[in-house]
């Protein structure tokens, strides 16, 4: 593993953030809109229901959901960016190894997700006085779990793009939304129908959001939920890495130049 080569890609993605308005929109614009629309909706519901936690639950949901969204987006959309700019060849004729590439993509995902987290957290506090800092040190394991979820979704999508090309690029923006209803971002798993609860049980993010709400409601950190989520996340991460490595091997069988 050579840091210089990992840094090269971090630099390339860093340049891109300042150049490509699409990326700025993903990182700053949509979270702002969501915070405004759903935060105001939460305020209204809170007034009607006389429940002071509605806003905190919704705002926390948005802030933390964007960690997954960004972490997966940085992996899949950056791969697409290399396809669109025909740059995959320039990267892979260089000495960079597959695992250095993966590490660079991961680190970039962490940096951008944390950047997004800081931005949305400040905005949430400024608009609604909801502070994610109130989760204290529990914030660290939750953010870590959400990052892993973003990574395995991102690697799975990236693996599919390597196999099937840009014709399935829509997955980079849509697939993550499929797990949102089962993740119980804004509501407890118990409100889901039975069949959906079964799906929810194998989705690691559902334990994270349940855990977050538990801290808001009771101040208690559920270690069992955390461990289940961690175990599931690590299994999915390992499977997604095997899948993307296999997809890369398949892409090499076809020739990386030809997959444009």
């Amino acid at each position, binding site marked *: 593993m050579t840091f210089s080569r990992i840094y*090269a890609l971090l630099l390339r993605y860093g340049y891109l953030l300042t*150049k490509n308005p699409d990326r700025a929109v993903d990182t700053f614009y949509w979270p702002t809109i969501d915070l405004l629309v759903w935060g105001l909706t939460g305020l209204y519901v809170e007034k009607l229901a006389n429940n002071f936690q509605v806003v905190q639950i919704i705002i926390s949901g948005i802030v933390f959901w964007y960690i997954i969204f960004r972490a997966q987006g940085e992996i899949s959309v950056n791969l697409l960016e290399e396809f669109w700019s025909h740059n995959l060849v320039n990267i892979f004729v260089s*000495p960079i190894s597959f695992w250095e590439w993966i590490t660079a993509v991961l680190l970039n995902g962490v940096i951008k997700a944390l950047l997004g987290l800081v931005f949305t957290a400040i905005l949430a506090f400024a608009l609604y006085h909801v502070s994610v800092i109130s989760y204290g040190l529990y914030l660290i394991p939750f953010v870590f779990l959400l990052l892993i979820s973003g990574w395995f979704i991102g690697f799975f999508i990236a693996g599919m793009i390597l196999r099937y090309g840009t014709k399935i690029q829509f997955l980079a923006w849509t697939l993550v939304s499929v797990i949102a209803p089962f993740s119980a971002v804004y509501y407890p798993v118990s409100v889901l129908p039975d069949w959906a609860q079964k799906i929810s049980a194998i989705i690691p993010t559902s334990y994270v959001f349940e855990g977050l709400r538990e801290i808001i409601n009771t101040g208690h950190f559920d270690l069992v939920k955390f461990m289940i989520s961690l175990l599931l996340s690590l299994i999915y991460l390992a499977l997604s890495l095997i899948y993307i490595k296999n997809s890369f091997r398949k892409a090499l069988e076809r020739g990386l130049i030809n997959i444009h």
Partner: protein
Amino acid sequence: MIILEARNLTKRFGPPVGGFTAVDNISFSLQEGEILGLLGPNGAGKTTTLQMLLGLATATSGSIKYFGKELWENRSEILEQVNFSSAYTRLPWLLTVRENLNFISYLYKIPNRRERINRIKEIFQLNEIWNKEIMHLSAGQMTRLNIAKSFINSPKILLLDEPTASLDPEVASFIRDFLANERKQFQVSIIITSHNMSEVEELCDRVVFINRGKIIADDTPENLARTVEISRVTLFADEGHIQALENYCKKKKLVFAKDTARHITVDIKDKEIPKFLRGITQLKIEYDDISIERPSLEDYFLLKAKDKK
């Protein structure tokens, strides 16, 4: 000294039955400081061969060794000393020339990075486009930048796919001189694919000609051209003598074309030219001017491309 060796390289696409063999059991080598032309008609297997040499595609069978080491077992170590440029690949279009060379220089872990980038900027005259985004470059500027990028790590081996496509003649000539000089000064070994045959003749020490995935020739450009036996003799004379020439060609069953009333071109085997000239002299056919066009690499290419069909 052999610096790159491809042995029994085969690449098949698709299923074992009904698939397609793009490269069929080819072997060749590249010497230190040698410039090798990889030629062949479209679809011959050149690009697939380049992809395999660059580690962008895995071979179905066979081996690739750089500096005596297997490519796939020593990929990073080998590719630090290799680079590639193609007129058909691009650099990230939203980044400027400076930003592109900057991030690429880190990919190759170049010592004295800043110095090297400034040197490349100077050699390839990138000053005026230094802060321009790639999407605003002309095709010629893009090709020049691609070649500049390929020299960023001072490679020992360079693989160039149509390096001077889209360049105006002056810049193309500069690039050819630069490549020749790099070879002379630093013993850089180069594999080049090009459809510009005069460029290949000028630059390459040796040509490997691929057709239908197989190597059909491996020789110097001169020797390959010599295998085409037909030369083109063009004669200028007054109309009466042109008519006599036409009759003579018909009688001798020679292939000819009467381009104008005072201008005839005869396709004739190289060794039969003296006999032809003696023959027309004996008939007292006079001509004002004569030009003999010896077969070139382009004639060889055209001949072999026809074989493909």
